[in-house]
């Protein structure tokens, strides 16, 4: 059948699934306002109430040591590097106390592929947090870290996730997905975790009942069809497991990275966000990225498919190392949501509304 905007519009209205070819057609042909209207239509169908959610949590980067040396990253240090660190329990505890004081409900611990940290380190860390801060959800690591811990601890993925889960890991953030195409991962030097490895960690976690999110970092060396490939791989796994709670696309931040280059534009961001809403028909929530796009575009993104404002991010070190320097307070986040005509609601990782 001939693809055109009319035929795609009809499928969207009939709640039919779009093909990869149709997604690519949208990237190549659809204008910004058309995409906004369609994505907004789908978003309203999925979230008919005029509510936009956010979470209060803190990124804790427990280590910056990483053997992956991805060339888009401005955060990592090599083993034995001058600024290499691993946080101790006291440092982590005081960060969690600050988080609780600010109304936070969760910690997002992410670090690097640190050869000194095997499964017992994570078990102790999670146990420590769980016993001292039982109300805090441990939404931590990334598939890359989990696959690496499994490897250096000589465990299966399942065993690794089971032991972490028993120690207190509640869910897994979708970081490190970058673009789920091995050609791109090779160019980014991110191929220590292959596409299949990343998806396998998520599939395993989902089968064991852990929810996760999924991200995409775009606007670097990937082609438009590779963005579509990314959507299709996630959609396929989601069909099997239903374990992704949200999709979080964000733009590559080039400052201080080996890869360098330019930031992609707001126009590209909004179009990509809208197309992700249209393609990922089985993922319930779509987060906007104020950390990389700023408050104005993040707010506008609520009309391009986004239904969640992401996190207050009490602490963030990774994209800020690469030049993203936006900061928002809780009051600002709530105001931006209300100003757009939505009720702001704090949520947890599984999108249950709090307060």
């Amino acid at each position, binding site marked *: 059948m001939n693809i055109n905007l009319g035929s795609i*519009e009809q499928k969207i209205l009939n709640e039919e699934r779009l093909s990869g070819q149709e997604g690519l057609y949208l990237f190549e042909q659809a*204008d*910004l*306002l*058309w995409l*906004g*209207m*369609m994505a*907004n*239509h789908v978003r309203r169908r999925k979230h008919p109430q005029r509510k936009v959610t956010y979470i209060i949590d803190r990124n804790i980067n427990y280590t910056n040591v990483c053997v992956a040396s991805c060339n888009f990253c401005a955060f990592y240090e090599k083993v034995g590097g001058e600024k290499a660190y691993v946080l101790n329990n006291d440092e982590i505890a005081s960060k969690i106390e600050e988080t609780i004081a600010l109304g936070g409900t969760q910690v997002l611990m992410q670090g690097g592929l640190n050869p000194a940290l095997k499964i017992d380190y994570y078990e102790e860390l999670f146990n420590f947090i769980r016993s001292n801060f039982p109300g805090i959800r441990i939404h931590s690591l990334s598939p890359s870290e989990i696959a690496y811990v499994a490897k250096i601890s000589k465990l299966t993925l399942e065993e690794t996730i089971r032991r972490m889960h028993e120690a207190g890991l509640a869910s897994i953030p979708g970081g490190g997905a970058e673009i789920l195409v091995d050609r791109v991962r090779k160019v980014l030097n991110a191929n220590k975790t292959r596409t299949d490895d990343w998806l396998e960690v998520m599939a395993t976690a989902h089968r064991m009942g852990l929810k996760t999110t999924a991200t995409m970092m775009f606007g670097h060396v990937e082609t438009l069809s590779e963005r579509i490939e990314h959507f299709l791989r996630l959609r396929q796994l989601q069909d099997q497991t239903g374990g992704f709670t949200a999709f979080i696309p964000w733009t590559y931040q080039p400052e201080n990275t080996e890869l360098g280059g330019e930031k992609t*534009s*707001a*126009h*590209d961001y*909004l179009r990509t966000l809208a197309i992700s809403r249209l393609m990922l028909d089985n993922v319930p929530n779509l987060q906007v990225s104020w950390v990389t*796009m*700023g*408050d*104005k*575009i*993040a*707010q*506008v993104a609520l*009309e*391009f498919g986004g239904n969640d404002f992401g996190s207050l991010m009490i602490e963030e070190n990774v994209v800020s190392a690469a030049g993203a320097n936006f900061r928002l307070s809780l009051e*600002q986040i709530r*105001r*931006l949501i209300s*100003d*757009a*005509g939505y009720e702001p609601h704090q949520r947890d990782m599984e999108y249950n509304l709090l307060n």
Partner: protein
Amino acid sequence: MDFIIRQSGLFDIYEKVQAGQRISAEDGMRLFDSNDIVAIGKIADARRVRINGRNAYFTMNQHINPTNVCRNDCLFCAFYRKDGEEGAYRMSLQTIRHKVEERLAENIREIHIVGGLDEQLPYQYYIDVVRTVKEIRPEVNIKAYTAVEIAFLSEISGKSWAEVLNDLIAAGLNTMPGGGAEVFSPRVMRKLFMDKLTAAQWIEIHHIAHSKGIRTNATMLYGHIETNRERIDHLIQLREAQDISGGFLTFIPLAFHPENTRMHKLPLATGFTDLKMISISRIMLDNFPHIKAYWVMLGVNIAQIALSFGADDIDGSVVEERIYHMAGSKSAQMMTKKQMQNLISETGHIPVERDALYNEIVTQVA
């Protein structure tokens, strides 16, 4: 896609705009009351395409702010200083000459000159600023002095507004910027900028300029204490003024930047407000040829998105903008021609380098 605009309850406005018709103040209020910014953008785009097709304009320009000493105390301004106060400056004609000369190698088409109401400078200085710039770059379009400055020059010289304009035109003035309009509301005026011109005076000065063949711009400063009704009233007054003279070229909605002003507790306008202002101005001001998304004040991101929401101009390369940067604007001081072209092309519009009167600059390829 029509059904989506129908769902927004704005379809009748869309139909009027598609037919090239004028919309009422009440229609304008309905647009402000809606949060359906994509539908509003679509309506604005319909108007935009009728007037400007897919063209999106930029220019290679330079800003000169000769003095920041100002007798007024506008609450929203972070730029002005009192005479002798720290940070106060006034440029000598020599400095101005130097600023123009240091960019002689660039193909600048327009020099934008605005500053404070500096009582220590003689009338002749303001005329000489224009003359000096014109001497160095006779081919450039000099866009100088807001209506507020014209009224001030009339006051200190005892000349009429028309006489002041005659002197400036003789010195080389070509066009006039649209600043100093703020919001045409007596209520807002009393609270924020007591000493300025009334709406009628501001419009009259522009009308005099138009009668002398001087094209001018118009602005509105939004995002402080003004109401939607006051915004609409402002747009309606401009539309009526344009019906009379046809001399306005471009409308530029200006977002209030609270940092370093005495209203610093107010939040910066949101992305929703910025895009609504662009779209609703485009829809209401059916007789204005151009709507500008001034990137220095909106930021590059919103300026780019605004091109799909009714704007057809992103201003220019700038370099050394002081007024918004003193109020905390985080945007860069300049964009290169290539950056502006890319920013526009990516949105599916045709980048057109323009002169001050929107004539296309055709670059000769050697």
